[in-house]
């Protein structure tokens, strides 16, 4: 069954909103995949180097699959969508565009993100849009390795001696608010939930995520940060201006612009180039 034959049917509003939602998922995977790939050659040991490179390869591959399906609804090839948009056209959560910082932040972000990804893949897998449900079930099996890997490292860092635990706690505290924003809605999200296209509302998904994450953090001996979530995002610097950040609405940090400038440089020099 194609997307057109699904419950999205002839509802243009739902098709546009769902295309936007898939774009957000693809952007999350692409941008985080790019961040993970920055560890290639620099990770703390050779095993982590191989692991992060593999996870990066996989996230970027998943992004491609979501871009294909977003393109079916919105137009454009995966390359057009990945390389051809300005930063404010990206719908990724701000969390994934933050620079890697130290290994602790990378692991904390990976753990929080992959847990969130699992929740939304579960929702899509149980949804009525068959091609997306099939895809979500496939990705979920692959992502399980990422989940285990992130959790294992988190446990290791939290249980290590010296400043390790304090640093990982600090990373957790700084990532927390933006991790909650992974569940911020895209344009038209309410309509998608009302029509049953996405079976679980963002707040319910966030609550599921938080429930799972809290249990693991407590078991590992880390403090669950206080919910400091501000409804309209939080102030941050964008090109020197302070404004509300909201990745799902295209309001990003300067870090995304820098990342995209690097990532799209070949494509911009020679559009359509293959390498």
């Amino acid at each position, binding site marked *: 069954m194609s997307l057109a034959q699904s419950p999205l049917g002839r509802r243009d509003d739902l098709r546009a909103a769902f295309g936007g939602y898939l774009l957000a998922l693809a952007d999350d995977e692409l941008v985080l995949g790019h961040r993970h790939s920055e560890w290639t050659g620099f990770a703390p040991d050779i*095993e982590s180097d*191989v*692991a992060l*490179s*593999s*996870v990066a*390869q*996989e*996230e*970027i*591959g*998943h992004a*491609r*699959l979501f871009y294909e399906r977003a393109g079916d609804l919105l137009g454009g090839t995966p390359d057009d969508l990945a390389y051809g948009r300005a930063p404010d056209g990206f719908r990724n959560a701000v969390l994934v565009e933050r620079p890697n910082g130290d290994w602790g932040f990378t692991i904390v972000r990976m753990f929080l993100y992959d847990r969130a990804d699992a929740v939304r893949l579960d929702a899509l897998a149980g949804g009525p849009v068959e*091609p997306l449900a*099939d*895809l979500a*079930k*496939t*990705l979920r*099996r*692959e992502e*399980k*390795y990422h989940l*285990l*890997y992130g959790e294992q490292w988190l446990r290791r860092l939290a249980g290590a001696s010296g400043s390790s635990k304090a640093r990982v706690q600090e990373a957790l505290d700084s990532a927390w608010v933006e991790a909650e924003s992974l569940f911020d809605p895209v344009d038209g999200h309410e309509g998608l939930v009302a029509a049953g296209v996405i079976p679980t509302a963002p707040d319910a998904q966030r609550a599921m995520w938080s429930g799972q994450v809290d249990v693991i953090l407590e078991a590992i001996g880390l403090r669950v940060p206080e919910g400091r979530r501000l409804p309209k995002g939080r102030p941050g610097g964008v090109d020197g201006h302070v404004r509300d950040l909201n990745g799902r609405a295209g309001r990003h940090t300067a870090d995304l612009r820098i990342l995209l400038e690097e990532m799209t440089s070949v494509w911009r020099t020679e559009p359509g180039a293959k390498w």
Partner: protein
Amino acid sequence: MVTQAGPTEQAIWEVLRTINDPELPIAITDLGLIREVEVEGARARVTMVPTFSACPAIGVIRQDIRARVLTLPGVEEVEVELSFAEPWTMKRMTERGREQLRQHGLSVPPRLGGGEVTCPFCGSTNTTLENPFGTTLCRAIYYCRDCKNPIERFRSPSD
């Protein structure tokens, strides 16, 4: 009017059996990547189930399939579609495929899942996981405590 007969599904399957995975020395049919072959006149349609959806070899395999099936008499169009309707599991791999991967030096799980990680060099099961990620998405790295060799273990997506 004389119409040329299109290819048979069987002829296409035979061609597919001669195409190897670019990263593993086994045929894509032994790896269980092909789900269905359909023929409609001069049009052939091959449905593929990738082991890992992000495997970078998928593009090469699709190209290979297209190029090779197009050499069959009567074929004018070849479509290679990816399907996620049913997952790739070890069950899709043939016994011959498993044996070829073992010959290649990989440790290979049984087709019905589970099983200990056996060292392909000395046969010991005194092995330990070094890294759930390896040189390709479908491999993990183990270590043999008896013969002290690192082991590449074929892995499938997790259930």
